[in-house]
């Protein structure tokens, strides 16, 4: 008996800019079932048995890399995780050479993080298997946005017309950009909030994201919000002169109890981690009753399992 199917299969997950709402919904359904597996007596199913997943992280990441690793292992894949130190980049090997090497080792999936925006597209051109973007430069971080979407959907149901406030360094954030694609596709009302130096020119927003609201006051933006998502403030932004001081940033754009109280009564507080507690989020909010930050981590494994499953079905058909 064949189950209901959705759109034609994808080979890679590089960005969320071309995903339909139906496709996102079917991924949410799959992630729900994957989450069940993590609560079974045997937290492993044989779906990817005999397949090889190679994690290639040219930028440091503990969270995303271990999440992908656990997800692949829960599906019984063989996993090899390489950090920047393990590759021969320092010996002058190019990205494409590295991909050819990994391919010759028999990899079926590459999960990659790289500082260069767009690099997963280059890798996808030279790799016969599937590529999952684990974060590229300022461009995209699709699996993070999908686990965020999963967490919001789990708590709030349908996201159409829900008010989602993303606060922080929007301009340099791949997490924000991928979330914008996913959330606007699902019909959420998105507000991006931060100081003008971290939001970028109004012209860009008008032309690219006409339906996204811009705010420079978190006090105002937080009112009636269904989701408050704080982004990590990278310290190099301070050095670049984009911020007057951490203390001032925290006072104006930090998630504190007062701001959470002005939101909807069932608001959820999110953060992609790792957090600068006391800067973009206060410790009592991070561990408070509205926080779903730990759930985001659990859901990350389930959503990444869903992505592997999504790419695996029909991979040997064409």
């Amino acid at each position, binding site marked *: 008996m064949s189950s209901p*199917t959705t759109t034609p299969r994808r080979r890679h997950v590089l960005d969320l800019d071309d995903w339909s709402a139906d496709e996102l919904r079917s991924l949410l359904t799959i992630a729900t079932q994957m989450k069940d597996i993590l609560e079974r007596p*045997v937290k492993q199913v044989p779906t990817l048995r005999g397949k090889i997943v190679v994690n290639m992280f040219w930028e440091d990441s503990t969270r995303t890399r271990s999440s992908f690793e656990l997800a692949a292992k829960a599906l019984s894949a063989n996993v090899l995780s390489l950090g920047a130190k393990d590759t021969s980049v320092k010996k002058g090997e190019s990205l494409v050479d590295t991909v050819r090497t990994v391919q010759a080792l028999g990899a079926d999936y590459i999960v990659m993080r790289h500082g260069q925006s767009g690099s997963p597209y280059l890798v996808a051109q030279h790799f016969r298997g599937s590529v999952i973007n684990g974060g590229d430069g300022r461009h995209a971080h699709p699996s993070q946005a999908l686990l965020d979407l999963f967490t919001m959907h789990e708590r709030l149901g349908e996201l159409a017309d829900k008010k989602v406030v993303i606060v922080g360094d929007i301009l340099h954030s791949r997490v924000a950009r991928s979330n914008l694609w996913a959330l606007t596709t699902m019909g959420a009302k998105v507000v991006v909030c931060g100081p003008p130096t971290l939001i970028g020119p109004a012209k860009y927003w008008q032309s690219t994201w006409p339906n996204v609201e811009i705010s420079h006051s978190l006090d105002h933006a937080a009112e009636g919000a269904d989701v408050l998502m704080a982004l990590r403030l990278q310290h190099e932004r301070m050095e670049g002169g984009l911020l007057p001081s951490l203390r001032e940033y925290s006072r104006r754009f930090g998630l504190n109890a007062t701001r959470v109280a002005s939101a909807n009564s069932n608001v959820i507080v999110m953060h992609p981690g790792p957090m600068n507690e006391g800067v973009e989020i206060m410790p009592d909010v991070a561990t408070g009753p509205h926080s779903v930050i730990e759930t985001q981590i659990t859901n990350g494994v389930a959503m990444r399992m869903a992505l592997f499953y999504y790419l695996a079905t*029909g991979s040997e058909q064409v």
Partner: protein
Amino acid sequence: MTPKQLMNDEEIRRALKRIAHEIVERNAGASLVSLVGIHRRGVPLARRLAAMIAETEHVQVPVGELDIGLYRDDLHSRGPAPILGRTILPELGKRIVVLVDDVLYTGRTIRAALNELSDWGRPSAIQLAVLVDRGHRELPIRADFVGKNIPTAKNERVDVQLSEIDQAQDSVVIVQED
């Protein structure tokens, strides 16, 4: 070729009734029996069997549901991503588990279900009940309880419709495929 009906709702009801009796007879009552339906149409069939057993034996048999999507051996040649159903199982240890499915064909679904069950626990025995056995086994698997044996050709398809899922009257039809 127009679909040909092989069983109507009344025939399906009688076949299930008989299977329910056979399950009770074979296992000397129903007190140790658990029913596990395989997604999708095995699930309502398992519920119906449980209701029939409850009627005659006054025992509420635990009913579970099993989705074997992640245990398939043909996942990589199928696609696009099939939506997975839920797997909710009662305690399996020391129980006689009767797997329930609508059509038994190659046996690969049952192979996957057996693997999945053994990841969940260790039943004292596993038996298999199917509404239709259409032959063409590719694995050494047979059913313990069969509603109807229907000889088929490989280019034919057996479609089971159940009111719970298909919003149509219960029926089993055979369709010729090109």
